[in-house]
């Protein structure tokens, strides 16, 4: 035993110390009982979590979204600004949603990556994030005007339908009413709009989508569908409105949006959203209501009419409310979304991965089970085949795992399910270095060398091979790390670090143990 040995031992102790230090927060955080968790103050819990091993979404459950900004309405120069605003708005929305540690990052020019760990309600999250949330207040055209427009549409649709038929005369045109046929109460307009039965909704919607509305309607009018199903005289159906194209007010005039119950006297226990307008908005609102008593004012969200109350009097208070068939959650989310603001451009979800918490927990359990079983089988084999030296291999393996986990924790890397698989594979491949060394030592012993020189020769010869072999796996996992993302990247990280740790433990540490075991006198035989 010489100075060399002492340095190796020192390095080992230092590394072990660092590892324990790096892993301590993780151990505490994940193995803490619920009671202890409650007892700890908020801040300490936060720091503990931050320093602990990061679990990927596929292990803790949660949602990963890749969003793409729809740039069709924007000029190229406007995109960076729109991106920044969109991220800001999404951040506000997500903050209020109450997810711990959400991540919102830009990716490339027009993509945003959103991660919501621990999220349970996927539908709500998708709605909250995907909504453009364009809120507008538009006047509904007078009944007379509305009827005229609908008749015009009806005629246009009739002409198109008959254009396909072989024989047509003006008499046919007189009796063909594709659109109004679907409106049972025509020419009556319930709530100021055309009423279409729910069963006919799809057909009516398709009809309206089949014509170029812009060229048929008057310049200042537009058509919008109601958002919810309505009931009228015992029938359920949808409303189609003819609105003033110009918005009187929009989301920028809102100062505050809050969920309230009982805003609608006809739906006393239902939630709605109570809006408070800013001074400019309040002024406008006063003017609009004063000038249009008797008309309906449609409140539209993303080009669908949520409600269209009639203006009974001038409203000076700058308060308005949105009521409709809202669930408590929907109203709450709408308030959040209005408060945070409308997105500058529509956002599409182009990729999504949601993992429920039970699958996450299952995955952890099964992954660690697999590692344990694999490791045990390998250990048994090594001990049977290489006897006591097999135990040395075991020691190297354990240290390998400890260093690997510590490195992941220290780097704040994320452990994913493929990452756990990577750990299992590291176990299998790590043993290879030991096998190479042991086989060499056996060979040297067979040629009659003494124990000490057999060990020396074994390590010397094997080292080059081990290096070459592991470098190539480092190359392929390196390339994989660079190119892939998400869980697969986690796999590459684990494999890469695992191999580095393996080079250290398999070569240096086992050598140490051999030296320690055979140091001093002339050992006659080796249990290998």
């Amino acid at each position: 035993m010489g100075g060399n040995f002492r340095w190796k031992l020192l390095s080992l102790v230092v590394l072990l110390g660092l590892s324990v230090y790096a892993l301590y927060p993780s151990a505490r955080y994940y193995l803490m009982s619920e009671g202890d968790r409650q007892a700890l103050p908020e801040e300490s819990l936060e720091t503990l979590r931050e320093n602990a091993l990061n679990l990927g979404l596929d292990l803790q459950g949660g949602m990963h979204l890749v969003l793409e900004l729809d740039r069709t309405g924007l000029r190229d120069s406007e995109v960076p600004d729109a991106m920044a605003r969109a991220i800001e708005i999404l951040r506000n929305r997500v903050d209020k949603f109450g997810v711990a540690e959400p991540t919102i990052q830009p990716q490339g020019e027009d993509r945003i990556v959103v991660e919501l760990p621990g999220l349970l309600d996927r539908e709500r999250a998708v709605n909250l994030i995907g909504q453009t949330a364009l809120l507008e207040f538009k006047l509904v055209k007078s009944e007379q005007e509305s009827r005229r427009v609908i008749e015009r549409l009806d005629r246009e649709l009739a002409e198109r339908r008959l254009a396909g038929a072989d024989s047509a005369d003006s008499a046919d045109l007189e009796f063909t009413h594709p659109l109004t046929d679907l409106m049972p109460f025509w020419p009556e307009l319930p709530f100021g709009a055309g009423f279409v039965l729910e069963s006919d909704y799809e057909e009516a919607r398709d009809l309206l989508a089949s014509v170029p509305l812009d060229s048929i309607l008057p310049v200042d009018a537009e058509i919008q569908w109601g958002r919810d199903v309505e009931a009228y005289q015992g029938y359920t159906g949808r409303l189609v409105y003819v609105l003033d194209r110009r918005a009187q007010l929009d989301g920028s005039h809102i100062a505050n949006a809050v969920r309230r119950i009982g805003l609608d006297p006809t739906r006393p226990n239902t939630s709605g959203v109570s809006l408070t307008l800013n001074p400019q908005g309040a002024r406008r609102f006063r003017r609009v209501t004063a000038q249009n008593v008797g008309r309906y004012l449609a409140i539209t969200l993303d080009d669908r009419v949520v409600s269209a109350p009639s203006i009974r009097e001038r409203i000076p208070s700058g308060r308005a409310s949105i009521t409709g068939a809202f669930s408590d959650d929907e109203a709450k989310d709408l308030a959040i979304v209005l408060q945070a603001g409308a997105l500058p451009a529509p956002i599409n979800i182009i990729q999504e991965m949601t993992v429920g918490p039970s699958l996450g927990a299952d995955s952890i359990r099964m992954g660690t089970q697999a590692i344990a079983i694999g490791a045990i089988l390998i250990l048994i084999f090594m001990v049977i085949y290489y006897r006591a030296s097999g135990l040395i291999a075991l020691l190297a393996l354990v240290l390998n795992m400890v260093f690997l986990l510590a490195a992941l924790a220290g780097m704040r890397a994320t452990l994913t399910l493929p990452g756990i698989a990577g750990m299992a594979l590291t176990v299998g491949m790590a043993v290879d270095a030991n096998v190479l060394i042991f086989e060499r030592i056996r060979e040297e012993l067979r040629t009659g060398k003494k124990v000490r020189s057999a060990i020396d020769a074994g390590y010397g010869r094997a080292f080059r091979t081990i290096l070459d072999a592991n470098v190539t796996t480092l190359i392929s996992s390196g390339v994989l790390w660079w190119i892939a993302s998400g869980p697969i990247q986690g796999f590459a990280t684990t494999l890469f670090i695992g191999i580095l740790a393996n080079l250290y433990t398999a070569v240096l540490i086992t050598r140490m143990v051999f030296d320690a075991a055979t140091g001093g006198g002339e050992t006659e035989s080796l249990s290998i």
Partner: protein
Amino acid sequence: MLTMFLNTKIDFMTKRRLFYVVSAIVILVGIASFALHGGLRLGIDFAGGRLIEYRLSERVSIDELREVATAAGYPQAEIQPVRGTSDVLFRIPDVEVGEQATGDVSISQQLRAALQTHRPGLTAELLREESVGAKIGREIRGQAFWAIVISLGLILLYIAFRFEFRFGLGAVAALAHDVLVTLTIFSLFNLEISMPVVAALLTIAGYSINDTIVVFDRIREQSVRLRRETYFNVLNISINQTLSRTVITAITTLFAAGALLIFGGEVIRTFALAMTIGILVGTYSSIFIASALVLELRRAGEAKAA
């Protein structure tokens, strides 16, 4: 000492034509299967689409589930119950991904509603949902392709640098063989190729090269030592000498991959299967194919020089 393969003297080189034929047959079968199935079965990360996995409160037959999927408006859905559990996977390819959530009901909601109508009282817990738009699918395909090409290229360079170019070619050819055979098996059983499978293929590449390097290293060492022997014999001797190490490492790695395959759960199963197959094939190619190719290349080189 317990040993296997002590002083074996198997003549690998003479029988090498046999191994070429075996490999060629397998790869041909693969090509046929590829043609028959109209290409590889791509997972949603490459082809785009949606994957939804539910945990049902009781097992429901595939036929009933098909009715449910059709009722929800997705007759083209692939339905896969998970063996040993009441979990079910719905795969819906080519569906328009890109929800702009305004009043439009999402696919999982539609499925759930259909399930409820069909079997009221049945609960369906959402285990996971993945959706990939066609654009991203294309990108991921590109990523996978480049990952494989760049890895192979770098590995070739490294080996050419450490040994000689001939060895590099032999190694990479053996690697390509491994990837092709693994893909053949996937094609035969119509298994899905997804990003984790590509990751497995890359790992197998690294592992297989390990094996091959160990043999090459021994060849290099023995070429110097046994100068009087023919190259043919040197190759044979080297493979025999490294045989025990190659097999043992294969065994230990198989323990790990096998444990993952059997106990790792459904999410990781395809990956573990690719690993297991890859390890077996990689070991085969390192022993029977790689050195044989080096021999051919050397002989071809000598013939040209003559």
